[in-house]
């Protein structure tokens, strides 16, 4: 439906009354309002700056430091600094690894074991980081459903965040975009959420692509996007921009905004008209952030921001629209503490990206954006990040500042194929043009660090850290197919194996194990799973050991290598209060391997092992010893083998704060 744009902004509190219902809010929480406390921040004599560079790989970093490619890092090392490989989490997925750092524990202490978990009562995969409860009571009037009790979104990470501990001791902290902090945990510190923050539809990001190119006319672009067929009639194109579902309506229809594009009959230029505003784009031009507003109800609307990119005017029309981010100027969902912090930043900088991991890897992976276009978009992300960092550095004079960069991770995911001639997706022509992208993003981080160093004095501890390293993703391991072929998983209709997903073809009465997520394997345990068949205790323990041993024995017939380097048994490697959430086995892949594309959601492709031919070609699902991250300090590091949770202890130690009993790390200095 078209929206007038006259509605008043929908407040977070009002919005959350709908809870998940507003599909926008799936996975969102925070009805529990932050409790504002008005008391002064303590004054700390020591200062700590932590710069998080997602996925900075120890091997590449060491090589480029040695070759003189990273002068700022080198300068810090020459001045008495130090760096080490940083032990990552099991498994080395970002939400898990950052949670280790946030809480100073391993997954047993915070409960995040994977991007995905599953509901044992339905076997359906679901997000592990957030949970949304729908409004419990509603009133239906005609086609309209009114909420009578509030829904809410919850951050499922357990343990206390280190900035909450600092707050207990009156040490001020500003924490920008640390992953695994959505919705942000209650605190009076300044925090802005990062990875896991959804787009306005409640997803991890769905782009829209409008074209009259026949080959692109599929409803789903293979994940992460939607392709819309449009017609150019008399130099005019009409499109609809999808928004969140409208929970005010009984059938929850997806809301839409109409827009029109007027193409210049001569020049490669077009005018976009949307909600009474218009802007002109040249071919290959990005629009900058555009505000859009979806009307839920005659007097209520939800605001978002998105980027338009005019990819081509002729001969084919191609218009890309980024996922719609939550508008930081009037956030309908909780993205900061205090609530006003996001608005304060927006007033200073204008709209800025709020969705976790804003670079659109799905658009590149599906050929909607090409390499150049993807990089241009991620350059915008990086530029915005640097400007915000400069601002926070300029007013940082006590306590702790944490700042996060995502571009290192995202570019390594998408461009590893072009530095690895052995990769199935290696393309020598593209490698000649883009083979330097990964090195260049390390150089960009070096320059960012140079900006940081201007604010580092003798009382400041500087830590640069990454959550994990990187390695090629050449071959995919179909865990569920392997389980089936090994007799641990039974399909009800074996002839429909390849079409199976979400375990819709599983005969649970004859299934003993299943794989969910990117590293997890679960036993179909009696009393835990809905149709569990394996008895708890010795029966399960024996089965776990048997499967783990067999997994480590798998050999790839093509390479002769073991795809699974370590099959970790949960009870052996985790500690803490959240062991009951753990998968029974966590796979640590060998270099070059990862879980396949389809296995994580309960798919069963024909082959156990397959080549990865996609642009998403670098990854980090390996055994932790294969892909350590990096920690660099402007002081000597005394620890020989530091791990993520040790950095938490280090930060607290600088401020003279004892770590809590559940924290397992020790200071590295």
């Amino acid at each position: 439906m078209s929206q007038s744009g006259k509605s008043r902004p929908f407040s977070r509190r009002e919005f959350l009354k709908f809870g998940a219902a507003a599909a926008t809010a799936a996975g969102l929480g925070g009805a529990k309002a932050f409790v504002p406390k008005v008391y002064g921040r303590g004054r700390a004599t020591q200062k700590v700056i932590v710069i998080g560079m997602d996925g900075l790989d120890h091997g590449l970093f060491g090589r480029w430091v040695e070759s003189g490619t990273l002068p700022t890092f080198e300068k810090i090392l020459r001045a008495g600094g130090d760096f080490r490989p940083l032990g990552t989490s099991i498994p080395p997925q970002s939400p898990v690894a950052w949670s280790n750092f946030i809480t100073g524990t391993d997954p047993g202490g915070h409960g995040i074991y994977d991007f995905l978990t599953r509901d044992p009562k339905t076997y359906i995969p679901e997000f592990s980081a957030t949970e949304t409860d729908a409004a419990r009571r509603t009133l239906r009037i005609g086609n309209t459903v009114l909420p009578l009790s509030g829904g809410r979104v919850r951050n499922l990470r357990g343990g206390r965040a280190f900035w909450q501990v600092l707050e207990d001791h009156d040490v001020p902290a500003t924490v920008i975009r640390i992953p695994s902090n959505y919705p942000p945990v209650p605190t009076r510190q300044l925090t802005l959420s990062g990875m896991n923050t959804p787009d306005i539809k409640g997803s991890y990001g769905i782009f829209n692509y409008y074209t009259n190119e026949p080959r692109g006319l599929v409803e789903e672009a293979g994940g992460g996007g939607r392709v819309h067929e449009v017609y150019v009639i008399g130099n005019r194109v009409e499109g609809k921009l999808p928004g969140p579902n409208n929970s005010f309506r009984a059938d929850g229809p997806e809301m839409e905004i109409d827009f029109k594009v007027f193409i210049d009959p001569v020049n490669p230029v077009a005018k976009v008209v949307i909600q009474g505003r218009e802007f002109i784009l040249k071919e290959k031009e990005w629009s900058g952030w555009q505000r859009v507003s979806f009307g839920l109800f005659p007097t209520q609307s939800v605001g978002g921001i998105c980027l338009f990119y005019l990819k081509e005017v002729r001969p084919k029309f191609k218009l890309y629209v980024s996922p719609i981010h939550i508008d930081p100027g009037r956030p309908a969902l909780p993205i900061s503490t205090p609530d006003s912090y996001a608005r304060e930043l927006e007033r200073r900088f204008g709209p800025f990206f709020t969705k976790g991991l804003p670079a659109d890897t799905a658009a590149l992976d599906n050929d909607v954006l090409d390499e150049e276009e993807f990089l241009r978009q991620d350059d915008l992300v990086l530029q915005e990040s640097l400007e915000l960092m400069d601002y926070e550095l300029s007013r940082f004079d006590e306590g702790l500042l944490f700042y996060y960069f995502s571009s290192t991770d995202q570019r390594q995911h998408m461009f590893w194929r072009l530095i690895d001639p052995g990769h199935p997706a290696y393309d020598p022509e593209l490698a000649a043009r883009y083979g330097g992208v990964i090195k260049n993003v390390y150089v960009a981080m070096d320059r960012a660090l140079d900006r940081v160093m201007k604010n580092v004095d003798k009382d400041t501890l500087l830590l640069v850290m990454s959550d994990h390293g990187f390695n090629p993703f050449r071959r995919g391991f179909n865990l569920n197919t392997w389980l089936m072929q090994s007799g641990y998983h039974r399909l009800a209709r074996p002839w429909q194996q390849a079409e199976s997903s979400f375990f819709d073809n599983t005969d649970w009465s004859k299934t003993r194990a299943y794989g969910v997520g990117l590293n997890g394997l679960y036993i179909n345990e009696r009393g835990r799973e809905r149709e569990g068949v394996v008895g708890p205790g010795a029966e399960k323990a024996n089965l776990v050991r048997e499967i783990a041993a067999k997994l480590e024995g798998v050999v790839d017939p093509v390479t002769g290598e073991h795809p699974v380097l370590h099959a970790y048994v949960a009870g052996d490697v985790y500690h803490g209060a959240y062991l009951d959430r753990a998968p029974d086995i966590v796979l640590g892949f060998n270099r070059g391997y990862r879980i396949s594309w389809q296995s994580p959601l309960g798919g069963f492709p024909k082959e156990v092992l397959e080549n990865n031919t996609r642009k998403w070609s670098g990854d980090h699902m390996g055994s932790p010893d294969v892909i350590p991250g990096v920690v660099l300090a402007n002081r000597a590091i005394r620890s020989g083998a530091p791990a993520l949770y040790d950095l938490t202890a280090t930060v607290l130690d600088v401020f003279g704060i004892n770590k809590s009993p559940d924290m397992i790390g020790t200071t590295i200095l």
Partner: protein
Amino acid sequence: MGSAKVKVDKGLYEKVKKYAGLAGYSSPAEFVAHCLEKEIATLEESDSEEEIKKKLKGLGYIS
């Protein structure tokens, strides 16, 4: 509990018989009933599952 008969062509029935045995069902009828139950469950849940799938796919790690 009552029961009803459904006609299927002979070729399909032969396949049902064959795969019912291979898959460990006690009879072709049990196999068919199980298949239909699963299929119906899939249809009933398809909307929400599709919704979940779309959201998960945005992760980038999954197809």
